[in-house]
């Protein structure tokens, strides 16, 4: 800008020049002002652009975060256009179906994924168009051919003209539902088994009554021959033995289930167990003309076991083999030391060529109350608890048992694995000599008068002096008068229970040292403890084992 000042000399040229200069300055100033304005506008626009850029960057960041969140989801989240072209495919979809995003973008979703819909596709599309939403279960086939059950949600986004779809893998839920259904079926089956068992139990407990009644009739008849009398007595003994075994089995199962059974383990030779088992089983096998082959292992095998319980195990297995094999079949009991197994174990096999086991029954053969079909079962009796007992007793010994059969009519084999001792135990000391039988004064107390009287007769015949009482108070009075050496005392008595009677007797100085024996139908550890606390010396489960009682009368009183 030329900074010229007007001259006092009014020369025309100078004035013109001045005017021109002012005009130029004016133009320059106007240009500068406009430039200033333009610069301001530009800066304002620039500021707006910066704000917009920042907003877009924020939006981009948020979108990226959302995309990452979508990728974190295990669900397959897919966006497709209205003409079914895939526009978005998250990591969940990659994992679920096996295709990477780059492989599927732009492809037709229906062509890529074979889908079984719960309804007609046209109906689903119509619902989506009408309601903007479809939710349902579908089955899709992944890249590797897996068929995946999925919960599918479709949302129609009219604004972007796309369909947002998510698929949740419900395989696990389906598996759980199936497991639940199986469990429910198991429970129904177990309930049915229980009902069948109760019906069978009633039948089995009633069964011995008829032969017992018949035997009693025979014994009462005046013209009964000695042979008939012997047969009747044999029937009575056998039926009582059967009932006792049945009840013992039931109690054993209950005790094992409740964890109340205690093994009395000590070193025992397997040979001794085999001998005891085979001697018990031979008569049954012989009656059916069955051959029982027992192979005793050499060198001898010793176990740390409860011999009575193992005898129960093998008796049950041989008893079953005998029951479920026809006349003339072959049964074998064998054992061998398992090779190369640590800790060492013996493998015992009970094999028969009898009826075999239905393949459907085989997996459940050790379950409680499971038996072969009723028809088949009723021919042989039993409660369906024998194999459960076998399995649980073997398990209590630290072993295992398995059942094999090629099918019905093809025989069966039960294999028992039991841990064994590495070395033979030192020989046990010889048993003490049997005590001489002495006449005792015995008070027998039972509210079942028949039971009390028959026991009194039996003990009188063995040379003892007996007296009976049928109520608690009567027992206390009888004891005070009779001064017994031994009292066989029932627990469930009218007027005063057996525990209270025992306490009263223990309080009578005249009865100091009296041998108190509880007689009950209960034999749980709690019952034994209660009897002990009431002052009883011993406990006998009904029906009383007379041999045990005889031994106690000889040696303990």
């Amino acid at each position, binding site marked *: *800008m030329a*900074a010229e000042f007007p001259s006092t000399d009014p020369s025309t040229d100078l004035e013109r020049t001045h005017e021109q200069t002012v005009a130029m300055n004016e*133009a320059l*100033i*106007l240009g*500068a002002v406009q430039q200033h*304005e333009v610069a301001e506008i530009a800066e304002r626009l620039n500021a707006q652009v910066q704000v917009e850029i920042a907003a877009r960057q924020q939006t981009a960041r948020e979108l990226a975060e959302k995309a990452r969140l979508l990728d974190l989801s295990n669900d397959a989240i897919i966006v497709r256009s209205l003409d079914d072209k895939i526009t978005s495919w998250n990591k969940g979809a990659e994992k679920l179906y096996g295709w990477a995003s780059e492989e599927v973008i732009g492809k037709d979703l229906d062509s890529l994924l074979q889908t079984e819909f719960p309804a007609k596709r046209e109906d689903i599309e119509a619902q989506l168009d009408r309601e903007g939403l479809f939710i349902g279960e579908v089955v899709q086939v992944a890249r590797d051919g897996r068929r995946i059950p999925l919960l599918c949600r479709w949302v129609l986004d009219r604004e972007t003209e796309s369909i947002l779809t998510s698929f949740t893998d419900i395989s696990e839920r389906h598996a759980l539902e199936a497991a639940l259904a199986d469990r429910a079926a198991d429970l129904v089956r177990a309930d049915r088994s229980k009902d069948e068992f109760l019906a069978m139990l009633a039948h089995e407990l009633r069964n011995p009554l008829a032969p017992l009644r018949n035997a009693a009739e025979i014994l009462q008849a005046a013209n009964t021959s000695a042979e008939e009398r012997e047969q009747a007595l044999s029937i009575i003994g056998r039926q009582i033995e059967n009932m006792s075994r049945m009840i013992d089995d039931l109690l054993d199962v209950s005790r094992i289930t409740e964890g109340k059974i205690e093994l009395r383990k000590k070193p025992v030779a397997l040979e001794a167990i085999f001998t005891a088992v085979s001697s018990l089983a031979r008569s049954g096998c012989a009656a059916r003309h069955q051959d029982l082959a027992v192979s005793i292992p050499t060198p001898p095998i010793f176990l740390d076991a409860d011999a009575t319980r193992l005898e129960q195990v093998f008796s049950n297995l041989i008893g079953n083999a005998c029951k479920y094999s026809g006349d003339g079949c072959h049964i074998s009991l064998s054992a061998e030391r398992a090779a190369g197994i640590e800790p060492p174990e013996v493998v015992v096999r009970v094999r028969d060529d009898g009826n075999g086991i239905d393949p459907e029954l085989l997996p459940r053969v050790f379950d409680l109350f499971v038996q072969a079909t009723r028809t088949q079962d009723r021919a042989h009796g039993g409660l369906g608890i024998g194999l459960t007992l076998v399995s649980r007793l073997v398990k209590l010994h630290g072993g295992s048992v398995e059942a094999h059969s090629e099918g019905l009519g093809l025989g069966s084999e039960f294999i028992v694995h039991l841990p064994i001792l590495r070395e033979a135990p030192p020989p046990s000391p010889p048993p003490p000599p049997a005590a001489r039988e002495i006449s005792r004064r015995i008070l027998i107390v039972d509210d079942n008068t028949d039971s009390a009287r028959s026991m009194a007769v039996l003990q009188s015949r063995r040379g003892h002096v007996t007296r009976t009482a049928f109520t608690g108070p009567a027992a206390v009075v009888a004891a005070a008068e009779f001064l017994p050496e031994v009292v066989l005392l029932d627990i469930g008595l009218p007027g005063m229970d057996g525990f209270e009677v025992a306490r009263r007797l223990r309080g009578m100085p005249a009865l100091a040292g009296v041998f108190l024996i509880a007689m009950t139908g209960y034999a749980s550890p709690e019952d034994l403890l209660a009897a002990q606390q009431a002052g009883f010396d011993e406990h006998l489960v009904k029906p009383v084992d007379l041999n045990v009682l005889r031994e106690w009368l000889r040696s303990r009183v």
Partner: protein
Amino acid sequence: MRDVAARLIAFETSENQPAGICAPATFRVSEKLRSHLSLLMGKVGFRAVLSRALAVAQADSPCLCAVQVNADGSLEPVNATEEFENTCQIAEGGVLLVAQLLTLLAAFVGEKLTLVLVREVWPKLSFEDSNFTREDHPMKPTAAR
């Protein structure tokens, strides 16, 4: 530039008006500059610079909306003058307006020439100790303020 502007307004106030009436002083400063600068850049040129200065100053002092630039480049209130007077805000607005006018002049013709011109208008005033420096970049528009 605020310093110089404030000094010019203070001078015009003390010379011609009772204390506290600031707006007319601002007008007189503007008028004196118009008379002198119109000779150099023309009335249109001065009007353009003053209008621009007013527009920029209004952004910082909205009370300046009550002021307008006439076609001849003179400054006058839009409505009643009494509303414009006696307020510190208006006084501050006047300082801002004059400062912005000087800032634009410095931007367009340079600081030295601006100072020469100011001295020619107010020869009694000394600006030796004034802070005739750029508080803002002269070409930097006010949008960012």
